């Protein structure tokens, strides 16, 4: 371990957060995680990702190295590159994101062959049988999980050092505008891709008179979108399908409660594996000072430990009951938004997560060198 120089950490992720690559929660998470580590200092980071051709560029001061995908298997999480053999040799630590995918398994094999200490994180991209039942995760020196729920999925296969880091959230960016009028809790907002497992239909079904709902997100499932349009016909509901980042912030400012209704079984009867390993948008909404109502899917209940600013529902009747409390004015309380934000800043903010991640990296390296 090089103690006199910054630790060099390589993050490996099959895609990076950009329209040129992929705009998804997993990519955004890695972006945030690297930013959080930058707040700590003492680390040099590079993000390695896969693409059609080799590229190198800087974003927010962090180098991003895109390697040519050599995989004969289609799909982002199946991307591989043997260039990792030469690109990684000088790093002290490698953090393999999406470790339960073909990308993750291939990267794990190479990093381990290079004898570089390695940490893995499941971002929900797969359930690679070789990494799980084949015990490939046993080659990792540590695991960072993005929720207790995510760690439970890995825990029966990996017994080594682990850390659960829910976040980070950019609490400076996701904060209410100074000129914001008082929030109206009767205005609900859902922010998610329009996909069946997001359970937006459940929110529409439970929405009582007296509340409005804004659904923000891109359509990834046309049939489901049309179903939602039909369900929404007689209610105070609008869709915003093309909000950019600044528009999204304005929408958060203009609403009173955030609802996240993801489900493990969608309206068509399909079971959904690993719904919401970490509800990033829920935390972002809380950072904005919005009380939240979340389903009991995946990690979502972990995000709202205090009913004063967060409620959990299991089905449509329960959600409907909570929403009737909103109509009646009995929930949320007047300081619920402040409590939500304070909770996120304290537990899920950039600096908090950055320091915990740095500490885990250092402990892992120390354990490896013993």
């Amino acid at each position, binding site marked *: 371990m090089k103690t006199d120089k910054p630790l060099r950490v390589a993050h490996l992720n099959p895609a990076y957060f950009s329209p040129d690559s992929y705009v998804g929660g997993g990519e955004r998470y890695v972006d945030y995680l690297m930013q959080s580590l930058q707040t700590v200092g003492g680390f040099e980071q590079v993000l390695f990702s896969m693409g059609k051709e080799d590229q190198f560029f800087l974003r927010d001061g962090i180098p991003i190295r895109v390697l040519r995908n050599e995989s004969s298997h289609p799909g982002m999480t199946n991307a591989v590159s043997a260039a990792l053999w030469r690109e990684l040799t000088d790093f002290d630590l490698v953090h393999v994101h999406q470790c339960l995918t073909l990308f993750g*398994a291939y990267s794990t094999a*190479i990093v381990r*062959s290079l004898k570089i200490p390695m940490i893995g994180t499941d971002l929900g991209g797969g359930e690679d049988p070789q990494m799980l039942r084949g015990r490939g995760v046993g080659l990792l020196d540590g695991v960072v999980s993005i929720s207790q729920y995510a760690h439970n999925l890995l825990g029966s296969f990996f017994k080594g050092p682990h850390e659960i880091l829910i976040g980070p959230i950019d609490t400076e960016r996701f904060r209410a505008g100074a000129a914001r009028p008082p929030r109206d809790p009767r205005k609900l907002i859902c922010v998610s891709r329009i996909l069946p497992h997001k359970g937006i239909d459940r929110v529409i079904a439970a929405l009582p008179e007296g509340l409005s709902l804004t659904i923000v997100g891109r359509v990834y499932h046309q049939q489901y979108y049309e179903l939602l349009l039909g369900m929404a016909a007689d209610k105070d509901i609008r869709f915003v399908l093309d909000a950019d980042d600044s528009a999204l912030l304005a929408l958060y400012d203009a609403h009173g409660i955030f609802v996240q209704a993801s489900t493990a079984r969608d309206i068509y009867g399909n079971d959904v594996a690993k719904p919401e390993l970490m509800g990033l948008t829920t935390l972002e909404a809380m950072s904005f000072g919005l009380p939240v109502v979340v389903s009991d899917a995946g990690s979502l209940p972990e995000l709202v430990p205090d009913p004063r600013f967060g409620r959990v529902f299991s089905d449509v009747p329960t959600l409907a009951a909570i929403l009737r409390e909103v109509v009646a004015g009995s929930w949320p309380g007047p300081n619920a938004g402040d409590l939500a934000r304070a909770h996120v800043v304290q537990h899920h903010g950039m600096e908090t997560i950055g320091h915990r991640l740095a500490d885990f990296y250092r402990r892992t390296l120390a354990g490896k060198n013993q």
Partner: protein
Amino acid sequence: MRILFLTNLYPPVILGGYEIACAQTAEALKKRGHEVRVLTSWSHLPTPIEAADWVHRRLDLHWHIPHMPNLTYEVRELHSAVCSSYSNTLHLLNALTEFKPDIVSLWNMTGIGGLAMMDLLNYLDVPWAIYLGDRVPVDIAANVPEDVRGLFNAQGSRLYEKARIQSVSQNLLDEIEDHSGITFAHGADIVAGWADLSYAVPHGPYMPDGKARFVAASSISAHKGTDLIIEASVRLKDAGIHFSVDLLGEGDVPRYIDMVKRLHLQEHVRFIGQRSYPDLLRSYADYDAFLCPTWERDPFPFAPLGAAGCGTPPIITGNCGTSERLIDNVHCIKIDRTVDDLARAMMEVAAGQHDLAKMGRAGRRLVTSDLSFDRHLDRMETAFGEHMRPWNVSIDPTLPLLLFLKHNLSVRLRFG
């Protein structure tokens, strides 16, 4: 030195000279006092009891014979043959752990999942050398997809960067580069073939009774030139030349017996079968010339050297590997690989146009000096000694897991 030999085949199971050369080298280095272990595949033939403690026949052989297409061959088996066989890789790991060699000497790696084994040696930083008697790197590069090779750091020439490369001929190195682009950054030793003349006997008179007695010793097959020999024999017969051809070896014998019969050559061409190496050397004393119209890309047929060393001049394809070491009309008669040229050379011998005794003496001098077995062993010892270095014999207990992951990923990348 503690030397671990790794080879797909080992006598009594052989395909050709490559395996014999491996065995001769291993046994001779053992006699020189080195601690030797051989890790190879099973034998279905009786094996010498005295070698049981140091020849470990534990590898599975995923049968694949290079350059001999088999349309029924399963691609999955091909993968195991050239890329990865998990059980074989584990056997190598166990051998490294138990035997703790100073160096590992690799020979033909085709058929036993050689790529994963070389990757393991690189991972452990074990000093290893590969004796190229055939185009093993081409077989791997051609039969393993790019993404799978990448898993083992085997794209381009990287797999061989830590290895000491020994090649029987420059011809073979050129062929490897031409067909795969693989080059060896640290160079390669040309360690030509040899002949162990321990069993040789003095050559008898040449062409007694005016009969030209030709012999060939190789697998009986088209690529070794059996067709050419038989077709040239027709020319000699039609010309009324007094001659005989004895074909030693195994292979597609029934086909060629029919060919000889169809061409009415039974009184001239005989199939003798396989002979032990000592018997083979002794038999050369009663022949006038050795026929070796092998294919041009034959890296280094060993048999012509044995014949030359026994005073039986080879008639040999001019651009095969062995020809790099022999001078035309001094040690041998070089030919283009055609029926015309082979028949011409055989007729010249039968007509007494070559001083066979003089050529035989020159061949013997060459083989007993520069191409002697002792010289070969010296070269091997020197190369091994130079390449040896300490390596960490303590094995990470999770290493089998890494090998397992790589093996299964290689299968998955290839077959989905």
